[in-house]
């Protein structure tokens, strides 16, 4: 009897292809199945016990401030020494096209207000400022602005020109009387990216057109980008004293600017680097006189 039973059992296994383990039907999607019902599979490399474990991808650390470096290994130069090198590097180049550039590194948070202003250097670097003035058309203000040398004056005609893309100016100011008109003109989309949109914060919406224009004519704008303020501070033909005056003016303006900001976002000047258009950059140590006693400041004032 036992033998037939055995035989039947084996037959049944052959004919009925039911799986040995009961499984959950395929109708239920996998994500709906409670975790208890899904078979727990373990691999050698799985969660629990040791073995070859894949290293988790390290999340890159983000910093709230711009990186600042330890300046102790940095060789720093006096102004005249830097100028001596730079004048050697730029020998034979036309002195009006080559500029001295100053890069001021600021210790600062990545977010928050940036240093941004205009400054009138004691010795202006460039003189190709063309100013546009938005003021009521045909008013006394308009004629005054034109007399002062504005290249484009008006309200609706000026907006029309801007919309057509005819921008003849590289500075734009607006009188307070035309502020509303400017708001309704919908030109911010064109002017904004060019940095021309008048704004009371930057002092380009003003009730005193004359003084603003006079400031702008000799004024250069600077702006902090990625923690550095860069600005042209002189032409190659400048004497050391002229360059020193310009640098001093810029630095004191920057310090004023920093003091005006609120204390939640502290800023401090970290490093000052002088370079020229084609020359290397020199970290300045704040002194003026040349270290080589054979070289006098007036030697660095000769024709280039």
């Amino acid at each position, binding site marked *: 009897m036992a033998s037939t039973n055995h035989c039947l059992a084996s037959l049944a296994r052959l004919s009925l292809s039911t799986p040995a383990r009961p499984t959950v039907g395929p109708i239920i999607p996998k994500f709906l199945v409670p975790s208890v019902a899904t078979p727990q599979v373990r691999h050698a490399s799985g969660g629990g016990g040791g073995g070859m474990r894949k290293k988790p991808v390290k999340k890159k650390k983000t910093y709230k401030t711009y990186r600042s470096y330890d300046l102790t290994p940095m060789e720093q130069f006096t102004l005249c020494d830097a100028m001596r090198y730079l004048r050697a590097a730029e*020998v034979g180049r036309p002195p009006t096209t080559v500029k001295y550039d100053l890069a001021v590194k600021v210790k600062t948070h990545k977010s928050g207000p940036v240093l941004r202003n205009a400054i009138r250097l004691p010795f202006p670097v460039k003189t190709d400022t063309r100013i546009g003035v938005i003021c009521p058309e045909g008013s006394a203000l308009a004629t005054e602005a034109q007399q002062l040398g504005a290249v484009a004056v008006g309200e609706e005609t000026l907006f029309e020109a801007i919309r057509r893309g005819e921008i003849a100016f590289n500075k734009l100011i607006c009188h307070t009387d035309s502020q509303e008109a400017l708001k309704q003109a919908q030109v911010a989309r064109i002017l904004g990216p060019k940095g021309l949109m008048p704004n009371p914060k930057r002092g380009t919406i003003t009730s005193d057109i004359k003084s603003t224009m006079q400031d702008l004519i000799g004024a250069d704008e600077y702006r902090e980008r990625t923690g550095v303020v860069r600005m042209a501070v002189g032409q190659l*033909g400048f004497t050391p004293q002229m360059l020193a005056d310009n640098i001093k003016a810029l630095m004191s303006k920057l310090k004023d600017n920093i003091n005006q900001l609120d204390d939640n976002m502290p800023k401090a000047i970290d490093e000052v680097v002088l370079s020229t258009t084609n020359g290397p950059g020199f970290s300045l140590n704040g002194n003026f006189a040349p270290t080589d006693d054979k070289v006098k400041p007036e030697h*660095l004032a000769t024709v*280039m």
Partner: protein
Amino acid sequence: MVGVVRRLHKLKALLDLKCGPGAAIFPSDVTRIHLEFAYGLAGHLGPRKFWRTNLPRLKFWNPAIPMVINRTKDEAGPAILSVYFREPGSQLQELQTPSSSFHGFAKAPQPAEGERVLTIDMKNLKSDKILEELLTKSGAVPVRPSAQDAADMAELRDLEQIGEVDRERVKKKTDAEKREKRLIAQAQSEAAAIRAAL
């Protein structure tokens, strides 16, 4: 801004402005130097190279001497180096020297009273020949690099060698990576073609 160490390595290259061929001090009677040469290659290659490589060193060691360049568009024109000397015993008035120009506006000035000119024809000369001639004719004294500078230069040479080795190693690695990427891309595109054909 770029990190301090990297900038320092660049600054070490300032030694290039200080030491090397052209590091020489002119005698005190040299008042000014003027170079005239053209854009283009015919005979003006040497003068240009002299300006680019040697003149900065001369300027570094003689910061007070105006060194003016006049570049013209006339390739057939001359390439002349003029050195102006003060005649012994003469007092010079304020010299009128034009600024350098890339458009031919800075013609060589006439020597002032009590000044003499020495000209060197630079056309078709190589830069080292021009320098040699200038140094011998003007009586300039070459400057030897100081002990510190020599040590720095040796250090830079070592750094360059290490850099060469590193560059080779990194190139090998990136080449292997690129090759692997290329092979994978090729295989994938082939597989896609087969799938599309089915």
